[in-house]
């Protein structure tokens, strides 16, 4: 791709180098710790499902029991499988039930007992990973059999709170040309320290992320994919206190993309920064294996900070997300870096500014399936003005070759979308895509002109900020309110009690398998995706 902005490659290289420097200490932190949710994720991959009569999942009951008795510093696997072997339990579920009833005595085994526990644990977890691999292969096969829609993909949210209302709405959206369906989560879920079970009908402004809901929706979209002859992707949120577990469930149930940011939970859910950084690393290892495209959340900064003043914080965060993602094993084609069209429409030349920002991001990450978010903050009750602003967002998206367009709703300022809002929104993007989809080839920012200057300025500001962060430390920068003008001290927020220093001899069969790399290298949509991304 020829640069339209005449960016200095040296400066771009420097920005990446600084991001690496800023991120490395955090990676060290992550590799030195585990969290309650990571350990539960291990149990989930190993096949432990279901919940007790109060709805508390067995993974929680088991992990809590282990933690109470021997702690989780060695990981849950060693004591759990040791107890399984020692107690002769038929399966993890029975173990969990007994543990919940206070019937199981855990220990940190040594020597051959440890080896036996480890071997069994690895075998169980490997079976789960094989399921994830099989789901990935199935996705690849379906995409091969059906068509993979061209980019930009049209990304649409459903949010009724009731999975059984969500399903027909999602199917309707797909029929009307949505390529990706996201089921927004209920407002409260991110702060729950467990993943609810079963099909749910009672969310607020979103539907609970549960394994069963994932399964139901994926099955419905498989049906619709076949009906339409193109593969319709499904997305959810690997975010909040249960990020690692949700990542695992997503892999097991063949979700295709996941919202997964290294800092979103910190800034917008007040989750402890250290907890978040540890969780996101494990989640990304799972996503890497599952062939899931992650979506990062830089768009959110622009809802609390000013999109013009804070444009460089988006770029900085993207470079950090990129560093963390690649470190965790994701490939470039899996990096759905987020950004947004949020400038106040009353700002003069606002569309030119948006173009500058969007083109900058496109050129900084040429191989990444960028996810571009529509206006939300300046959407008012004037639905006509909102429909117009959404159209210009769509236009900016096609002009700057964004890969994934989240479709804005004219009623964003009012309510979660009506069926008709979504239908009209799709008409909007279809018009823009069909009428002006090829305008990009005639979009040539005037050399030295307004757009080029603005892009260069944002890049310059990004380098300066990254330098500061790499010097003072990322956690300090977050505490100082660098992102989304929200201050989050490293020792504040929820979930810090779920952070555990790894002991010597910490054992995590899932991490071991995931870090060993993909057994099956073929069949992934990597090629098609990266080709599409690069050729545009």
């Amino acid at each position, binding site marked *: 791709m020829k640069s339209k902005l005449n960016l200095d490659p040296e400066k771009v290289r420097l920005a990446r180098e600084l991001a690496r420097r800023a991120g490395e200490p955090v990676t060290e932190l992550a590799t030195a710790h585990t969290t309650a949710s990571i350990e539960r994720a291990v149990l989930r991959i190993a096949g432990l499902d279901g919940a007790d009569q109060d709805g508390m999942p067995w993974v929680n009951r088991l992990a809590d029991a282990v933690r109470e008795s021997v702690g989780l510093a060695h990981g849950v696997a060693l004591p759990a499988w040791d107890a399984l072997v020692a107690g002769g339990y038929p399966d993890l579920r029975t173990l969990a039930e007994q543990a919940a009833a206070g019937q199981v005595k855990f220990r940190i085994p040594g020597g051959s007992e440890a080896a036996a526990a480890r071997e069994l644990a690895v075998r169980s977890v490997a079976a789960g990973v094989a399921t994830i691999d099989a789901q990935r292969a199935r996705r690849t096969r379906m995409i091969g059999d059906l068509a993979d829609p061209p980019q930009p993909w049209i990304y649409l949210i459903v949010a009724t709170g*009731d999975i059984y209302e969500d399903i027909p709405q999602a199917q309707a959206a797909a029929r009307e040309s949505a390529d990706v369906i996201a089921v927004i989560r209920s407002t409260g879920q991110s702060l729950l320290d467990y993943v609810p079970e079963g099909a749910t009908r009672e969310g607020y402004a979103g539907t609970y992320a549960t394994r069963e809901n994932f399964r139901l929706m994926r099955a419905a979209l498989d049906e619709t994919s076949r009906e339409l002859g193109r593969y319709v992707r499904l997305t959810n949120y690997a975010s909040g206190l249960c990020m690692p577990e949700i990542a695992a469930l997503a892999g097991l149930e063949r979700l295709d993309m996941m919202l997964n940011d290294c800092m979103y939970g910190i800034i917008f859910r007040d989750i402890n920064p250290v907890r978040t950084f540890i969780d996101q690393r494990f989640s990304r290892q799972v996503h890497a294996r599952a062939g899931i495209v992650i979506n990062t959340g830089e768009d959110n900064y622009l809802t609390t900070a000013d999109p013009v003043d804070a444009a460089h914080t988006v770029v900085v965060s993207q470079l950090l997300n990129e560093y963390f993602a690649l470190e965790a094993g994701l490939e470039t084609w899996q990096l759905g870096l987020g950004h947004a069209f949020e400038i106040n429409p009353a700002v003069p030349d606002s569309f030119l500014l948006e173009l500058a920002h969007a083109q900058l991001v496109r050129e900084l990450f040429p191989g990444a399936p960028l996810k571009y978010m529509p206006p939300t903050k300046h959407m008012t009750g*004037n*639905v006509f003005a909102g429909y117009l602003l959404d159209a210009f967002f769509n236009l900016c998206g096609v002009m700057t070759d964004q890969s994934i367009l989240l479709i804005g709703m004219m009623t964003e300022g009012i309510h979660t979308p*009506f069926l008709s809002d979504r239908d009209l929104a799709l008409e909007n993007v279809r018009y823009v895509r069909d009428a002006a989809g090829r305008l990009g080839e005639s979009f040539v920012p005037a050399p030295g002109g307004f757009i080029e200057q603005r892009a260069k300025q944002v890049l310059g500001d990004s380098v300066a900020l990254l330098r500061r962060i790499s010097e003072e430390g990322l956690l300090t920068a977050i505490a100082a309110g660098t992102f989304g003008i929200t201050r989050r001290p490293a020792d504040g927020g929820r979930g810090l009690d779920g952070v555990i220093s790894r002991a010597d001899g910490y054992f995590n069969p899932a991490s071991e398998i995931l870090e060993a790399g993909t057994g099956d290298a073929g069949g992934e949509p990597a090629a098609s995706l990266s080709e599409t991304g690069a050729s545009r």
Partner: protein
Amino acid sequence: MTANPVTANIVRPYGDTTGDGRIQVSFTLPVPYGTPADKARAEGAAMQLAGKMGLEPAMVVHAKGMGPDYTFFIVYGRVSHLVDLSQVTVTEREFPLLSPAEVNLRIRAGLGRKLVVVGACIGTDAHTVGIDAILNVKGHSGEKGLEYYREIRVVNLGSQVAVPDLVARSAAEGADAVLVSQVVTQREAHITNAQEMSAAFRAAAPESGPRNWPLLVVGGPRFDPSMAAGLGVDKIFGKGTTPGEVASYLAYALAPDSGAAADADQEAGASA
């Protein structure tokens, strides 16, 4: 018009949940939106109107002053009105849809000569695209226009034809049917013009004896097809009409299937 027997079925508007009754409304009120007191009063007025329309609860999501005297509102809310589908009356097409070949056949059989159609935009209306879509060979929606039918002779008088000219010309051409288009509706122009036209044809016909004027057909995007009687015409075609529908109707009304009982409409054909 016949009531279409539908399974009795009560529905409500749907926002994002079955039965939620959500709808959107926008309107202007002649009230100022300047001072805070103005604004409060204007929004109160909008809420009052919303209430009268049955929105409860209602939410004024947008209000904008337009000049010193008017305010535009957008309101969302829930209506409690029920829609009873069993009470919906649907006008059923009273004639079969025929292919051009069938129409031609039927005219030959039923009428024994070419059917003569005179078309025009009357009054000051110059929107000929609609009537041309029906009459010209080119047609509409992939269907050829009446000129294409071998058994129909079309005389298209074009736009802004005065009613007396139309009546005279129809007589001169021996019109079986007169097709009139009306697109401009401001101040109900389409209604008045259609009525003037039908009255003129009646006035020009002999006072007594059987009906002695051509079949009168009007069309245009804002006509309600159920108003024919009120306009004194035989048939109304609304938006999206295709030439085939019109041809089928003409065949049905003017070239009765041999054996079919004559009805009032068919008598119209007798004059030509």
